[in-house]
């Protein structure tokens, strides 16, 4: 167990270093960092001095090392566009994105997994057919379009729910939450649904496919031949075997919710990291892009680590040596 986790941890660190390298290369070579920091009228000498003081003349590996060291301490430099420390910008917006992603993830899982199981167990029933039609619609509707339709219906036509921003937030230390005010709670409904729909439909389809695969195996057939009850077969044997591969997939899905939040945040003007990132991309604000990339990589690495450990717990073939 310890060996397994430490191996995975080591791999995660390597992945982070590689992503860091990409982020650094982005920062160093896309556009000229000096040009982005100084005005047009700066003299050549001043630029030279700045280049020297920023250490941009050092060997590549030294610069990379410094970049990593700074990043580990949470220092990602200054935003070209907003002239503020990137870490502060991200810390400010992080709670908004995390709250949105969390609500969507819970929504997608709580609805998606049971629907996937049901459609696999009763493939011919009316509900299964409806679920599959809905899920096909779900993967075919771009997230931004879902957002627009929800805004049009619940915001513009019915005027029930707010269509942009987070509403009122409460500061809890450095964390700002929208969960404690009624306007905050109302504001999160439409964005969370928007973000959850696509992920949910994917989860339905993946769970269904895995479960159907398991239901075709010999051990399920042998379980039927022993006269075990369908309840026991479906929910104890089949479901547990389905969960093994599904854990990985769901881990990846939950991770990608944070990235897909970019679109939702853009549609609903939700003041999160995604909105910050999309503005950074269109204005070529490299330090923000690099920091966001690293942060997302970090989230993924953590999720992957959790998934691997879960895998280990669920599957005795990994846990117990033969």
């Amino acid at each position, binding site marked *: 167990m310890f060996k397994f986790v430490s191996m995975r941890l080591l791999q995660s660190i390597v992945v982070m270093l590689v992503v860091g390298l990409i982020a650094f290369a982005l920062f160093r070579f896309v556009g000229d960092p000096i040009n982005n920091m100084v005005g047009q009228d700066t003299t050549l000498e001043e630029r030279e001095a700045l280049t020297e003081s920023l250490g941009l003349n050092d060997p590549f590996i030294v610069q990379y090392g410094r970049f990593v060291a700074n990043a580990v301490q949470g220092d990602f430099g200054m935003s070209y566009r907003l002239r503020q420390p990137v870490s502060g910008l991200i810390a400010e917006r992080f709670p908004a994105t995390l709250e949105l992603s969390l609500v969507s993830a819970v929504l997608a899982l709580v609805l998606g997994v049971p629907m996937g199981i049901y459609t696999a167990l009763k493939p011919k029933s009316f509900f299964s057919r409806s679920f599959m039609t809905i899920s096909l619609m779900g993967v075919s509707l771009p997230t931004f379009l879902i957002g627009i339709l929800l805004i049009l219906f619940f915001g513009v036509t019915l005027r029930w729910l707010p269509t942009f921003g987070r509403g009122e937030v409460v500061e809890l230390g450095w964390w700002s939450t929208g969960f404690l005010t009624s306007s905050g709670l109302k504001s999160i409904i439409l964005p969370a649904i928007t973000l959850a729909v696509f992920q949910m439909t994917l989860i339905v389809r993946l769970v269904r496919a895995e479960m159907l695969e398991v239901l075709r195996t010999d051990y399920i057939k042998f379980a039927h031949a022993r006269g075990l009850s369908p309840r026991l077969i479906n929910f104890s044997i089949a479901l547990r075997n389905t969960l093994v591969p599904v854990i990985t997939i769901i881990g990846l899905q939950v991770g990608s919710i944070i990235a897909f939040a970019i679109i939702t945040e853009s549609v609903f003007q939700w003041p999160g990291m995604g909105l910050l*990132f999309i503005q950074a991309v269109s204005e070529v604000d490299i330090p923000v892009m690099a920091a966001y990339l690293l942060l997302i990589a970090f989230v993924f690495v953590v999720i992957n680590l959790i998934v691997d450990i879960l895998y280990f717990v669920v599957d005795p073939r990994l846990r117990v040596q033969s």
Partner: protein
Amino acid sequence: MSDISSEAPSFITRFRESDLWYNFKRSPGAMIAAFLTFVIVFGAVFANFVAPHNPFDLATVDLFDGLLPPAWEADGKATYLLGTDDQGRDVFSTILYGSRISLIVGFASVGFAAVLGIAVGLISGYAGGIVDSFLMRVADVQLSFPAILIALLIDGIARGVMPRDVHDELAVYVLVVAIGLSFWVQYARTVRSSVMVERNKEYVQAGQVIGLPDWIILIRHILPNVMGPVLVIATIQLALAVITEATLSFLGVGVPPTSPSLGTLIRIGNDYLFSGEWWITIFPGVALVVLVLSVNILGDWLRDALNPKLR
């Protein structure tokens, strides 16, 4: 020689007798989807002839006809079936031209991703060892980032290295590369795992015993045997690519408004949503959904038809 008379049935005859065609004729969903896909592709390819107006010919666009509702509404004009946008461009015509851009980006990026992914998958699966480990690590890392994020990053980098007007001009190519680079992993993984199965099959060893070089075995023997799943992925990814292009354009980092795709059109219309001019957004949106839905239905059907185990 009596060869000609006993020659094998032609490709078309074989196709008409195949289970695939039989299956197709018996699934109304797939037939409707194929029909709709055909209509949209046809309209997009022949937009010059089908569209009632040329929305990008400034001479024919009249600003006074701006923001007209669809023809069946009270203020609508019969010449503008689905209404006009703020600049007086016919919405129906912009949809046709927009679909063209969306489809070009979709097909090109899927093709790009497929070629890259298949090549990597073939090499990785056949070579094995260190080459395989390295390529698959790269794929793993990339796979943990959603395609949309990678596409955004690549687009961001492109904006960083080229001036704005050049970027706008090359927007379509940048998109193709961005989407293609973010989609190759799935082909690579699927092809790799198929190759690893095929590689150990005896027909491959038979080729080795004959003395065939590896590349002939790969191209002539293994490749045709792994194309089934690739076709399914390509279909489903065409839908995804169209969605991704639309999303990027909607976010303002895709195709510029001067030659809009469906996503750009929805973005333009989105600004008018609150003032009641819903048609500028909704109709391109409907076109996009119908296209993507049809392709997805075809993809699902193809997957089930090629994998009889699932039925």
